[in-house]
């Protein structure tokens, strides 16, 4: 396809940003094709706004990828496809119920809590990096993260606690990695 050149700095950042967007999307959707589409869309949007986002591109891409993945989950839910019933081999995903709960819980979080949870637990960033990306203090990240994680834990506990990745996989405040550096 005939395309314009990548803006300065984008091509160098592309591999890491793509991997980040893909990881965030895949953890929610559990489908490689969907995650790839989401990562591409998030990065395309970053290109369009590159001048504004390049200094905080990682956080921006992770958050947009999470939002796009949640949107995709909602569309699937409305169409009743791909998320329930016995599926073929490519959805024989033992963590599918957990992804479903995760998407649902993320959707319900207040914006700031969701941003922190996405960056901290889906992008695997440190609290310091999350704080720098969001332009807030580490303490704010801790408090939003704790509240968001609490909501996630409750949502994931609503299901079968014995299932893989269920409630047992979500750390308790002060015990798991909530307060880890």
């Amino acid at each position, binding site marked *: *396809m*005939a*395309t*314009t*050149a*990548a803006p300065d700095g984008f*091509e160098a950042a*592309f*591999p890491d940003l*793509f*991997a980040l967007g*893909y*990881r965030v999307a*895949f*953890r929610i959707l*559990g*489908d*490689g*094709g*969907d*995650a*790839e*589409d989401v990562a*591409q*869309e998030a*990065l*395309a*949007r970053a*290109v*369009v706004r590159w001048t504004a986002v390049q200094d905080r591109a990682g956080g921006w891409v992770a958050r947009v990828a999470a939002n796009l993945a949640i949107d*995709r989950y909602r*569309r*699937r839910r409305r*169409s*009743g*496809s*791909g998320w329930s*019933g*016995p*599926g*073929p*081999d*490519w959805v024989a995903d033992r*963590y599918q119920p*957990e*992804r479903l709960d*995760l998407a649902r819980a993320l959707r319900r979080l207040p914006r700031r809590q969701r941003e922190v949870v996405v960056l901290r*637990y*889906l992008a*695997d960033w440190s609290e310091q990096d999350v704080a720098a990306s969001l332009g807030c203090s580490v303490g704010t990240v801790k408090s939003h993260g704790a509240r968001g994680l609490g909501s996630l834990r409750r949502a994931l506990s609503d299901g079968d606690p014995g299932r*893989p*990745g269920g409630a047992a*996989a*979500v*750390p308790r405040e002060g015990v*798991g*990695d909530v307060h880890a550096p």
Partner: protein
Amino acid sequence: MFTHLDDPAAPAADEEQLRAVLHRADRLAAARSSRHRLLAGGSAAVLFGAAVLAGVLGSGGTPAGPPQGSPAPGAGTAPEAGAASAFDRVPDPVPAGTAVPTTALTGVAFAGADHGFGLAAHRGRLVLASTSDGGAHWRAVGGRLPSAVRSASTSAGTAELQFTSATTGYLWSGPPAGQAGKADGALWTTDDGGRSWLRFRASRMVYDVGAIGSDAWAVVGNCLTGQTTATGCSLRLATSTDGGAVWDERGWIVPSWSGTGRQGSQVALARATPTEAYVVAAGVGQPAGLLMSTDDGGLTWQSRTMPCAAPFDMGAQLAVSGTDDLWLVCGGQGTAGNQMKALYRSSDGGASWRLAADSTGPHGFSTPPPSAGVGYLPAQGYVAPYTAGHRVLAVASPTTAWLFADRGQVVETTDGGATWRPVRDLEGAGLAGGAPGNLTFVSGTTGWVAEEGVGLWHTVDGVRWRRLGR
């Protein structure tokens, strides 16, 4: 903490991914620019409307200009006798603008009466050619086809092509024998008339594509091994609303289904309207396949009666002339260039079927109908197994259709399939379906027949055919 949800086979970011992102960014930027112009109001809004109108005309009606690029020696003149060998003497890569003889075409796809594209055999590889005069003259597009298609054996007929405008097109390849269920889906799209291609990475094999304007559907799945058996397979629908730049695998056509695939079997999509479509999976399951329909844009699918049954259970092809008018030709055992066939018709969207014709009598066109009300379908030629790109059935109306069976003649019916006769203008033309080629129509009267090494024929009234180029 969610590392257990990661993809152990996450793809690496590569050049292709980067191109896809930049391409999508271009479209986003263009859309934003258009919105801004529209919001500016006044004359800007008028200009935007004119631009949209021009786009509509350019993509669907008025033919665009010829392929860009520096014409090679010989370009600009009609291909003449001996052009095929001259074409093969052109070194690879074939320069844009190089004249391509019609005898090199292995299959054609037209976006309208004038604009068409074709895969052409060149030194054992495939190149893309285009025409803007209804197929009279063809030029190499230039650029590069995806390597999986470009390097494919031209005798295998491994790639299929569809264009919806002079610029937007789709290219896909059927399941490679013995690899379905493992291989990535192989579907590429172009928005620059085939000069460059963008790959869509489907979760499974891409079986068929149907596009109406910029609204494109692809059937993906793992139902056929191409060789022996697939169990617990599924078919899924991928859709794009922007000409193939971004795809969404939105849902199941068949979520979980045990079936038996045969070598060369086909899963095909037939779109009657933007929201109504049919998917036929032939040679799979019991009795001899699966027929699904949707009337809500692919959100939900309903199972329909699949009439093909033994002995006509080796494969089938479906064509539609309208929302509810379906034609299904089923193939049975074949031998020595002949195959038992049955043609079923439905006028209620597949809810019920009637046998319109079959070839249970002795081979030959003079055989009387085997039973009252059932016509005779020539046994000559194969409708199954499916050769990628070789759609054997084209339907113009509830009464008129053409059949170009592999290794058979082109035959036509004007009475709904009860009687079939060879197309007079094509008799003796050497068309035999043995080489890659196809039969395609863009309206009830305008169509083309191509076969590699033989040539290209064209009709504008559905009755008289004339040869194009050489």
